[in-house]
């Protein structure tokens, strides 16, 4: 039974830097668990602790039920794919793949058989006698996976294996990696900073920030029900729009004010989030995903509409991304901007506009005729509003 269990695992460096704090996670046999978070969040450190390449300061790591804290990587029987593949440059592809088997003194015929088999699964049969230097990035990555395939390890670990590939290749390899993992059928811990990879590949996704686990759920759950502001802003691209609002103190219906605008909170939300009632008269964070904003010109018969000025239109063919500004206070959870995106950009689009406006993004059907600079009407799908406590960042639910 190949499982990975992390129980309050902590890593503190000699300079007192706490990279991982009380991380508890269970990966079931055969499950593809993705560890995702911005750089520096501790995901690689956690992975290396499971591999045995990093000492564990506190807590327990179990692989296949065995406590492995004091075991060397060899004794843990894990397979690992490194970010830069770490292929042995002086060995051929076949020798690279078969190295671990040779170390175990498996008989030559058996090694050959397994290497051939792995080669075929990975489409590398013709390259088994070649040295890694002459391989492309994608091929090298497959060789790195081959090392795991031949072994039948107790756990499979991957440290950002796709981040060195170009975008197109990455999309292709995502499917490859998933396929290979399924074939391996072993508990897998996959580390990445790319939330798209996390969402498309993981059975479950664990979001880490500053060494602390934020939420661990299947991708759709994370998307639909983020547990806190960080997860809400990190997962999903383009990111969720989050604004500061104030709940109306009293009145029959529940409503929240974002700047000058008023949004009525439907009963479905009140049922799903009983705790919302306690926020009357208080400030809170309100979030809405870009696809849950309808953009139009007419004033529909809807109490919760928000006028917005269009800053930028990005046509993606199948949809249009509308960057707009509304009169409200914006919230950008620290560290939630995905890797590679300019942290300051969203704030500079439309800069120079008077203060007290906040940017936002909506996804619309390309048939809607829109022009930059015009004022339009946003209609939020209030069933999909998200609410968060401003102090703790936690989602307001029950």
């Amino acid at each position, binding site marked *: 039974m190949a499982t990975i269990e992390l129980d309050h695992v902590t890593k503190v460096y000699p300079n007192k830097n706490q990279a991982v704090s009380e991380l508890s996670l269970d990966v079931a046999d055969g499950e593809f668990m993705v560890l995702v978070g911005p750089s520096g969040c501790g995901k690689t450190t956690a992975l290396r602790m499971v591999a045995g*390449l990093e000492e564990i300061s506190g807590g327990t790591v179990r692989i296949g039920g065995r406590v492995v804290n004091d075991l060397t990587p060899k004794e843990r029987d894990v397979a690992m794919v490194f970010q830069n593949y770490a292929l042995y440059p002086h060995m051929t592809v076949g020798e690279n793949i078969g190295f671990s088997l040779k170390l175990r003194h498996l008989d030559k015929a058996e090694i050959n058989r397994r290497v051939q088999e792995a080669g075929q699964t990975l489409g590398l049969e013709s390259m088994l006698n070649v040295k890694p230097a002459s391989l492309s990035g994608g091929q090298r990555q497959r060789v790195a996976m081959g090392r795991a395939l031949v072994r039948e390890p107790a756990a499979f670990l991957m440290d950002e294996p796709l981040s060195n590939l170009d975008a197109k290749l990455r999309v292709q390899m995502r499917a490859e990696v998933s396929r290979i993992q399924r074939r391996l059928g072993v508990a897998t811990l996959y580390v990445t900073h790319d939330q798209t990879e996390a969402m498309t590949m993981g059975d479950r996704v664990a979001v880490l920030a500053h060494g602390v686990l934020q939420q661990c759920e299947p991708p759709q759950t994370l998307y639909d029900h983020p547990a806190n502001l960080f997860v809400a802003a990190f997962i999903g691209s383009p990111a969720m729009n989050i604004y500061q609002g104030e709940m109306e103190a009293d009145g029959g219906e529940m409503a929240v004010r974002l700047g000058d605008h008023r949004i009525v909170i439907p009963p479905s939300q009140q049922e799903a989030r009983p705790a919302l009632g306690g926020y009357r008269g208080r400030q809170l964070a309100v979030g809405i995903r870009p696809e849950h904003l309808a953009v139009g010109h007419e004033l529909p018969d809807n109490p919760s509409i928000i006028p917005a000025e269009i800053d930028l239109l990005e046509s993606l063919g199948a949809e249009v991304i509308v960057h707009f500004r509304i009169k409200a206070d914006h919230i950008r959870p620290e560290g939630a901007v995905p890797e590679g995106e300019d942290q300051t950009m969203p704030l500079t689009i439309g800069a120079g506009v008077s203060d007290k406006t906040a940017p936002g993004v909506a996804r619309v059907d390309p048939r809607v005729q829109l022009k930059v600079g015009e004022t339009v009407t946003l209609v939020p799908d209030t069933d999909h509003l998200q609410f968060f406590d401003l102090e703790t960042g936690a989602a307001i639910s029950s």
Partner: protein
Amino acid sequence: MGTRSVARRLRLPSIGGPPPIAGVARKADRRLGYALVAPAVLLLLLVTGFPLAYNLWNSFHNVILSNAGAPQNFVGLKNYAELFTTTGFPQALARTLGFMVVSVVLETIAGLALALMLHRAFRGRGLLRAAILIPWAVPTVVSALLWTTMFDPRSGFVDYLLGILHLPGSQTTWLAGEWTAWAAVLVADAWKNVPFIAIILLAGLQLIPGDVYEAARIDGASTWQSFRRMTLPLLRPALMVALVFRTLQAFLVFDIIYIMTGGGPGTTTETLSYLNWQAFLVDTNFGFGGAISVSLVVISLLMAGAIVFVMRPRT
């Protein structure tokens, strides 16, 4: 105060080292580490630490092997006192220091010039570099005998050349006069060692980024100015390395002296190392020789330390 902080204070090039691969089984790795350095450390202790200790011991005793049967009793500082009285040690010290200063100064200047020459990319640079490496690579014996031949009045080139050019001195027996002997020794020493200095300084020159010079030129610096204010300071680490090596080697020079002059004429080219050898293997006076050895070690260490201290890179 660990060596690491001392090294940092002196700004020695990373003695501390990169972080080792972290991991579980740290204790086993540490034990393995000690086991792996042990052979090197033990072997080096055998050839350096043990002799030092033995020398120290002997230096306080009366150990003259040719005087078989004489008791090897404790004599306190008598051997050390002897260093300064009748035995030619002070003269040898003066001579050795003199040779050291002259040779290091001349050789460093020549080495720098050679390094600058090699720094220019020109056709045949590889050939030049290989050509100057050979004098360094061949044994000192070769250099000594080669120049003994060259300076020989009968079969050497030097006198022949002087004769052809009708310059004075074409009949000199170089190794028979004090100053001419030193000149010959200096030539042999420089011929072998200037390439070494040049290689070290060349590496230092190559580390200096080119835009430093361009910026200086834009600022209006002349060639000499940019050399003095940019090249030399940036060459400090390399100069330090070259100086430490050469100064110590010059101070401890033995092979060339033994082979070319045998300390002669008379005792005029006896260096400290030569004296040391004489004490050990001719006089078999291991007590006195021990005293000389200990002095050599102490002075060497002090000099090396002084050079490193003075030349330490100031960032």
